[in-house]
Every structure is written in C-alpha cells, then in structure tokens.
C-alpha cells in the first residue's frame, strides 16, 4: 500500500483490502481528505474497519472505475464516491445513510424505484486521462488554493453532520466562519 501526500489530501494506492488501510491508519497523517483507489481492492470489510471509516474525522473518498463491483454497504462507508460509471439503483438501499450521502430528493427518487441509477451516489469522472488520474485531478481541483487549515475547518463542518446532524453543522459553520475570519484578519495585519 502506497501513501502519497498531495496539497490537501492523502492518496492511497495499492490497497488490497480496507482492513489494510485500517491496520496502517497511524501512517495516514492528519490530512483533511483521504482518497482510496479501490480497483484492486476486495469487496469486503470487517465491522471494526467499517466503524473506523464511519467515524473518521476526515473526508473519505473512494475511487473505483467499476463501481458496480462493490456492495452498497462498502461504498456507502465513504463520504464521497468517484466512479467511471453510475451505481445501479437496484444495488443501492434507500436507507438513512443514502439520504445523508445523496440528499433528500435523491432519497425520494431511489425510494420511488423509478430510476435506473442511484441518484447522486457516484460522481462520474471522464476517463480521458485514465480513471485514477482523473480522480486525483478531481480532488486537486477542489482543494486547489485552500490552505490545510482552511480545508480542515471546511471538512470539519461537513463531518459534524455525521454525529450531530444539521444542528451540529449549523453551529460548526458559525464557529468555522469566525475562526477563518480571525485568521484572515491576522494575515492582513501581518502584511
């Protein structure tokens, strides 16, 4: 398993099983976003690893060119799913986790059973540069120009939703805003 740091995120390649990622968790550092390339990964996960992923303080991203190879249970452990194709609606569950990951309207659409693909479940990337490179480019683009500190606060607000729901995010937004504004003011006074 290879761990490589980029601006704002850590990229994991050569991971054969999520258990391997869990075993190496102390080597992951403190980046706010972790990208796991999953094309060589087995389609299974232990309860212990699943609990760790669900509880992770960073944004977890899985990149799998063939998303349909993985179970909904495994895919839905990740906050963000990047794929070369959409995820079949028949393989997804209209559960509360789906609602959280994909939004209220997507949940209703999946529940109604009238869509071929699971709405909002996978962000489909173009593979002109190769799928793995496209996944890295996607995150490079999103994180571009953000400092590690700003990314940590932004992703912290998003992750507040996992445990505390909407109220926790509303509170985290306000605290995060003033933390960033204080940083900006200090930077400006230093200049």
């Amino acid at each position: 398993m290879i761990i490589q740091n980029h601006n704002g995120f850590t990229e994991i390649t050569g991971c054969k099983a999520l258990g391997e990622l869990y075993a190496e968790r102390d080597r992951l550092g403190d980046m706010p976003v972790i990208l796991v390339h999953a094309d060589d990964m087995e389609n299974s996960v232990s309860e212990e690893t699943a609990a760790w992923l669900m509880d992770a303080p960073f944004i977890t991203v899985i990149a799998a060119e063939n998303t349909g190879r993985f179970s909904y249970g495994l895919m839905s452990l990740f906050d963000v799913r990047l794929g070369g194709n959409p995820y079949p609606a028949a393989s997804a569950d209209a559960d509360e986790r789906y609602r959280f990951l994909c939004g209220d309207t997507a949940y209703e659409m999946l529940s109604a059973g009238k869509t071929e693909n699971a709405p909002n479940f996978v962000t489909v990337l173009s593979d002109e540069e190769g799928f793995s490179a496209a996944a890295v480019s996607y995150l490079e683009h999103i994180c571009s120009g953000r400092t590690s500190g700003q990314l940590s606060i932004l992703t912290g607000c998003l992750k507040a939703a996992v445990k505390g729901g909407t109220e926790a995010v509303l509170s985290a937004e306000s605290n995060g805003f003033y933390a960033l504004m204080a940083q900006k003011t200090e930077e400006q006074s230093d200049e």
Partner: protein
Amino acid sequence: MNEKAFVITEDDGILVLTMQSEGNNLMTASFFEGYEAAMAEVERLASEKKWKGMIICGGGRHFSVGADVESLSERSSKELPELRSTGQSPEGHHRQKHFFTFLYDLPFPVVSVVTGFCIGSGSEIAVNSHFRIAEKNARIGQPESTFGILPALGGIARSITHTGMQNAFDIVVSGELFSAERAGEFLWANEVVGKKAGFSRAKQLINFISSTGEEFTADKAAGFYRRFLETGEV
C-alpha cells in the same frame, strides 16, 4: 435603506417576497438591515396560519449576487473582540443567521425562484428554502471558500440536506459557480425551467401541496415534491 428594496405581497394566498435592493441584491449592511426587517415581518405573518406558502424571488434579472466581501470583512473584524472575550460567535451573527435558517422551519412551503446570479449568501437564502426552481439563465454557487472563509448562514448544512455529503463537499470546498442545468443534475435545484417560467411553476407546486390538505414540515418536502411530479402537472 431603500423602502422598496424588499416588498412583501400576497398572490392567491401565497406570500411573495421580492428582493430588489441595489447592485442586484448585493448584500451590504443596508441590504441586511432591510432583509432582516422583511423576514421579521414574514415571521409575524406566518403566525397567522393562513398562508399556502411563500415565494422568494429577485425583482430584477438576478436573485442575489451575494455578500459584499469588503463590508463583510469589515463587520466581522469589529465582531472579533466579542468573539475573543466570550468564546462564542457574536450575537449579531446569530440574529442574522436566524433570519436565513428560520425559513426552513416555517409551517408552509417556501420556494426560491432562482434567476441570474444566486451566489454566496444569496444562495444561502435559496438553500434555506424548501424548494428551488431555477431558470435556465441562473449561475449558482457558494464561493466563500475562494475568499478564505466559508458559508455560515446555513449554506453547508442545507447543501448536505438537499444534495448530500457527496455534492456538498464539491459545492462548499471548491466554491465553483455552476449552471442551472448542473444544479438540476445534482438536485440542488428541484427543477430547471425556462426564462420567466419559475414563478408560475413555484405557484403550481405550492398549490399542489396546499391541495393535499396535509400538514407541511421540512422533512416531508422532498416527498411532496416527488408526488407533485407524479401528478404530471406542467
């Protein structure tokens, strides 16, 4: 403050808030003063329990171009001592935030008709509404992160609710503007309609929900919208 910057009217049992403040609803201190007064009036009217719903729209070509970053920065700098002394985000911020987030708790459906630019705190008015009907010319986004800050008026929380963690991550962290069509693809917009068609579509949706006779709450909004689509009413 321009007295006509925020106009509340009634249209067949529906409250209509038209924002027509200067600079395409540029959110200056003056804008917020008028906005908070208008929303306080909406809050008062809502207690009358006679409304079918509410539509929020821009009076000109644009919904709102968002906050004036310079005046936002100036105001926030003044608030920082309060933050440092109390350890809490300032009282003024909570008051302002209330007049965005309370929309989601109103007992009737709130629909934002999104036209032209709908950016930053303007976009936060839209996401605090239960529904967003975007016209084809709309450009939408939460670009706060590109200025080194973040959306703090419900923009992150509601983006998760409407588009899921998957897309909220992209919208909030990248800060990129996106088209109405893109907003429809990832379900930020419930619907994308042609120019000038948003208002009548918003009325149709509110009238449908009212016609069911069922109690409206925010957590039922997406379900109501699905049923509205199933009627095939266009």
